[in-house]
């Protein structure tokens, strides 16, 4: 890559940039297809068959079938798109956010009610940078 990507130092964050856009296109276009009710029905009826319509990598396919929300981001998923799978499952943004951050729905909801995740200690992957710059 030719540009410095200083946001790569932010922990737990998958910026949908050119690098991810190049690998995630088909995965996200599958998600987009779920805007149509008839496609949601087909996907619910037979997910593997529905996914055959899209040129996904085996790993992208796995993350969708297993609802590995964090895994989807790592193989080019864009949250504005992958959330449509969750909507199809009857889940909310908050349900998925809890699963991505590895805590129970209740724990996540409690954290949000208490004011959310603090930026302190969460700005840099290298926590010494957090202390220096935070």
């Amino acid at each position, binding site marked *: 890559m030719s540009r410095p990507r200083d946001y790569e130092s932010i922990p737990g964050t998958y910026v949908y940039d050119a690098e991810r856009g190049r690998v995630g296109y088909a995965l*996200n276009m599958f998600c987009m297809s779920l805007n149509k009710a008839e496609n949601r029905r087909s996907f619910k009826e037979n997910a593997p068959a529905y996914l055959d319509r899209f040129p996904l990598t085996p790993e992208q396919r796995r993350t969708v079938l297993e609802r590995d929300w964090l895994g989807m981001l790592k193989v080019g998923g864009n949250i504005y798109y992958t959330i449509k799978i969750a909507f199809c499952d009857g889940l909310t943004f908050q349900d998925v956010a809890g699963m991505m951050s590895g805590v129970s729905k209740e724990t996540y909801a409690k*954290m949000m009610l208490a004011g959310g995740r603090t930026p302190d200690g969460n700005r840099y992957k290298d926590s010494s940078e957090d202390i220096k710059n935070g």
Partner: protein
Amino acid sequence: MAKIVAGIATSHVPAIGVAMDKGMTGTPYWQPLFKGYEPAREWLAKLAPDVAIIVYNDHACAFSLEIIPTFLIGVADKFPIADEGFGPRPVPVVKGHPALAWHLAESLILDEFDMTIANEMPVDHGLTVPLSVTCGRPDAWPFPVIPLCVNVVQYPPPTGARCYKLGMAIRRAVEQFDQDLRVVIYGTGGMSHQLQGERAGLINREFDTAFLDGLTRDPVALSKITHTEYMREAGSEGVEMVMWHVMRGALGEDVAEVYRHYHVPASNTAAGLMILENRSPA
């Protein structure tokens, strides 16, 4: 001559729309948020603008990754409500203002802002939630709307500084329109929130408060916040706040803050709302 009389900044969290559509605004979870919207609704009803420009981002509804317009203006006479993956919101169709929208499209392009023009597009919660927040649940929206979309879904979004300058160009264009229209402009999205990754749920009240203060005090300095700073400090989706700069740039230098409301949480998000009246001479 048309004039931009005021700006409204507000978050456009989808769950806020769901709460309204399902009649949950009085629950203990939602009541504090919605109570804070009431003064804004009263203010807007009294102002009774002739038309609104709503700056927002599409969320994979009208546009996909197939074609990604950085700045887009909707010139249609009506905009249907999008199915975002859970059926369309039960809200009125949004009426457009083609005459002003086409004037804006022409003026902005000749003023070196290369807008994409949409003759047909559905609108999603990014546009309808701000309308619901500020107008409640009417049978028809009280004014026509010009949708102005900003890409924030594919990195990089336009910079805050570019958005601010687009706002300035919108103001120039509005003031050249030959009908006497009182225009409000909405900047939507934000405030601090992160919807993705292990860091989901990030909220930064300190950043948001400084941002709200800066909108009146020093908007030019505020517009220079970098994308990485938004993402680090206000969460990866906090970068949506670049859209607030379009609104602010359209108001001119002299503005008065007439109302603000800030509440955590609305689902995963810090919900902010601010009303600015334009005191700048035309």
